[in-house]
């Protein structure tokens, strides 16, 4: 399942060392990339399209193997059947249209043969966490884009993962829905004590959400700059309009600009 499950001794959740990814087509998508993510940390990978940030997530998830370098993911070991150290949220909701919300969230547990008695409670907890308890029997097509994303999030949470990998999850949503999901995600992160690696191309979103923003270069993706977002202010709507927030966004934008150099202006 996971490529490497070492690095258990440290306080790191994820440790990438000189990781590169070269596709069969010969395109070098990533690296070499060094990255340490602490346990319980919320980091964003920020960069232009095609810089390999999604590839980095797939490598961490074990969905693809690195061409060279090492990917270490530490976890507390499977506590019970149906626990999985990694939750993945895609850019699209990626739900099974033939299954109800309940069955979609149940999927990881079903695949792990979790005992049904245990599963039911966990599914309801997960749906509760994303505020969809009343929609357990709905089909995906009956839901709005934001609600589908919440189902996707509930499915990622149902295995009680240590690490949540999110690949531009809110990019396709309207702004108001996105802001609301941003806030709910922060609440979940604080309450559930997860490590979150959040891929985005939005400077504003990354600064708002993260403790640390990693700015990536254009392909092949490497770390271009790194910012620690330390604010006394709690992350809430008030933070969005603060001078501090604006200053961080400006800084990060400047660091991001070279990544876009050489690309045709849109």
């Amino acid at each position, binding site marked *: 399942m996971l490529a490497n499950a070492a690095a258990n001794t440290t306080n790191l959740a994820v440790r990438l060392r000189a990781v590169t990814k070269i596709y069969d087509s010969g395109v070098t998508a990533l690296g070499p990339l060094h990255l340490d993510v602490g346990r319980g940390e919320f980091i964003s990978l920020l960069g232009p399209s095609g810089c390999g940030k999604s590839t980095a997530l797939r490598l961490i998830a074990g969905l693809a193997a690195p061409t060279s370098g090492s990917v270490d993911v530490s976890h507390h070991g499977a506590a019970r059947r149906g626990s999985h150290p990694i939750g993945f949220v895609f850019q699209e909701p*990626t739900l099974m249209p033939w299954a109800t919300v309940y069955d979609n969230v149940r*999927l990881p547990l079903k695949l792990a043969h979790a005992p049904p008695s245990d599963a039911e409670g966990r599914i309801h907890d997960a749906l509760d966490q994303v505020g969809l308890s009343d929609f357990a029997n709905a089909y995906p097509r009956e839901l709005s884009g934001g609600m589908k994303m919440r189902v996707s999030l509930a499915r990622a949470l149902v295995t009680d993962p240590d690490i949540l990998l999110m690949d531009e999850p809110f990019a396709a949503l309207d702004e108001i829905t996105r802001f609301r999901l941003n806030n709910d995600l922060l609440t979940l992160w604080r309450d559930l004590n997860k490590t979150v690696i959040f891929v985005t191309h939005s400077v504003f979103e990354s600064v708002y959400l993260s403790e640390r923003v990693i700015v990536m270069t254009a392909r092949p993706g490497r770390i271009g700059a790194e910012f620690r977002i330390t604010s006394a202010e709690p992350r809430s709507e008030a933070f969005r309009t603060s001078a501090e927030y604006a200053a961080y966004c400006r800084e990060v934008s400047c660091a991001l600009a070279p990544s876009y150099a050489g690309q045709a202006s849109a």
Partner: protein
Amino acid sequence: MMSPQRLARFVLPVVVFAAGLALWEFIVRVNDIQPYVLPGPILVLKTLVSDWGVLSQSLGVTLLTTLEGFIAAAVGGVALALLFNQSKWLEYSLFPYAVVLQVTPVIAIAPLLLIYLQQQTAVIVCAWIVAFFPVLSNTTLGLNSVDRNLTGLFQLYGASSVQTLLFLKLPAALPYMLGGLRIAGGLSLIGAVVAEIAAGSAGAGSGLAFRIAESGYRLLIPRMFAALLLLSLAGIVIYGSLALISHLLLRRWHESALGKES
């Protein structure tokens, strides 16, 4: 309530049908056309009633053949598609021959089959040959249309290949598969009829197509029409039932079954 436009969609074909029948009957009576040249619709209906004993038995035979051919096509088509999906090598090796079988007119194959196989078997094989291909190609298309990210998700959670097949590939392919089956239903009837015709009067069968051929030789034209009517009705019922099953299976989630209720 039905909107006027929806009502018209049901009423108009019926009106055209009735008008056509009336015109047919009118022409036959006015010109005093003999029944062995062209029977009027009323005579056809009367023949259907008077010959019901023979015809219903033939209908039963043809429907059974069709059903057997359809089941063989459904099982064979889906099974081949699953095999092809599991092994590219198998697909590359065999798919061209599936195409060859499909594009060679079955009416030309039927006489050969009748030489080598017992008639009952030959008829079913004919039905299978024409009907399996749409099931195969549609199911293959469906199995290849699975959401890439969903596949990734199954991989992430360590799904076995059986789980991936049962919980992901088959449900995702279902709408395509049902589309193929809907076509296969009508085609297996055609296959059965073609084989019966090819067997002709030499055959020992007694299906509807055999009845049509036989009535032709005996100049029982009204009975030919009655048998034709039954075949046509059988085709409509087969298509209708398959469409209904497809709708019932997909109505909760698939776009095609969501209707235009807005």
